[in-house]
């Protein structure tokens, strides 16, 4: 899916847990997520902390979208 969006000319960032699959299928901008059932959350945190975590991941995703890449790149969440 990620490739079809890219092919349509829209920059896309793939936020996913299993980054090796993302690498194999050919995403160019990749941001690692938390876990498969909750990629952008962590139910063991308080709601406020969980949202903060989500915000961090998405901030990294926006950075990825604003960064030129010349190949497959994983942007680690800081």
């Amino acid at each position, binding site marked *: 899916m990620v490739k079809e969006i890219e092919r349509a000319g829209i920059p896309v960032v793939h936020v996913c*847990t299993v980054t*090796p*699959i993302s690498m194999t299928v050919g995403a160019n901008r990749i941001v690692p997520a938390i876990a*498969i*059932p909750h990629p952008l959350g962590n139910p063991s945190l308080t709601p406020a902390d969980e949202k903060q975590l989500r915000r961090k991941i998405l901030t990294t995703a926006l950075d990825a979208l604003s960064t030129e890449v010349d190949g497959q790149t994983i942007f680690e969440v800081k």
Partner: protein
Amino acid sequence: MKLEVGYIQIRDIQTADKSSVKDGILYVNTKELEALALEDEHLKAVCFDVARPGESIRITPVKDVIEPRAKVEGPGDVFPGVITKLNTVGSGKTHVLQGAAVVTVGKIVGFQEGIVDMAGIGAEYTPFSATYNLVVDFTPKDGLTAHEYEAAIRKAGLKIAYALGKLGVNVTPDEVKTYEYPSIMEAIKKYPGLPRVGYVQMLQSQGLLHDTYVYGVDMKQSLTTMLSPTEIMDGAILSGNCVSACDKNTTYHHQNNPVIEDLFEEHGKTLNFCAMIITNENVYLADKERSSDWTAKLVDYLDLDGVIISQEGFGNPDTDLIMNCKKIEETDTHTVIITDEYAGRDGTSQSLADADPKADALVTAGNANQVITLPKLDRVIGTLDYTEKIAGGYAGSLEKDGSITVEIQAITGSTNELGFSRLSAR
């Protein structure tokens, strides 16, 4: 470890006033079994039914299938740490009611339970059309969480299978096989000229309806570890999953793991089966990396010449499979992997979610997306209410004439990745 397994051939299941095994017939008093199942306060009602090979019966939604077994001698008893006291099993004697199975059904938990047809074309795709099945249909109490409900049914099914297994303890088996699994030093000394072979079994461990229990431990909380294959025959590994029923191991599959059987078959002849490793398939990437590192470390440490790796499931576990394969190959150990495919209904899509050139020896259990039309059968045990929702079903799956069109991924055990069946693809 040395385990003697006595197989008692079962040729029918009948209800009776007294439960017993006599002349190959398993007689069951369902009132007693009902009382046993309802010991669990989460369950409201339970009813029993028998489905025999060739009968026009559809069983769905199937959660687990369990073979009745019990120990005659030796430490512990079957299903240790879950149904019986925790003890190291895998030695002594075990009796099996071969040809009989307990099949659990009930209101759907997720989307993920399967179909077992006892007759028609669907019967060719599931091994449980060939067993005499005591089908147990559970009704949970209201207001249970999904996790509570799943656990209650899982345990009740095991209890029933164990109770039936105990009926065979004093019966003379039709056939006895002995499985020996010595210490690694002894094993190497015993067959110095034969290649040392291990088996890496990957276990699904991804949450509700995706879990596997080893001696009662949820496998996702464990690191890659080792045990004797004979322990698995005694129910050390239990299924808590049936997601996309085609390629999830039921408890029955674990009890009768075909890779273990076929490795034992060649043991001492062409190879030396001396290592059984189990690992998980977790939802965190770090876990995947850690577990596959550990698998490769163990294989390297044991200095094996080759391993068979079997996967459970598909999608993200394809990554665990590829990581295991790649890292083990990098230790200069030969691998063969067993998996199944999701190549689309027309068979033209990419079959796996992950790939690596090192995975050059692959055995496939078939394309789970293949569409099949299952004819109307005379009787349904369970309910067809969820047919369109289960994995492999879709809106319109259930035809007016009672036939159903689904992908074979909805059929319990159709593309089992232990290589339990003969289905394949090219």
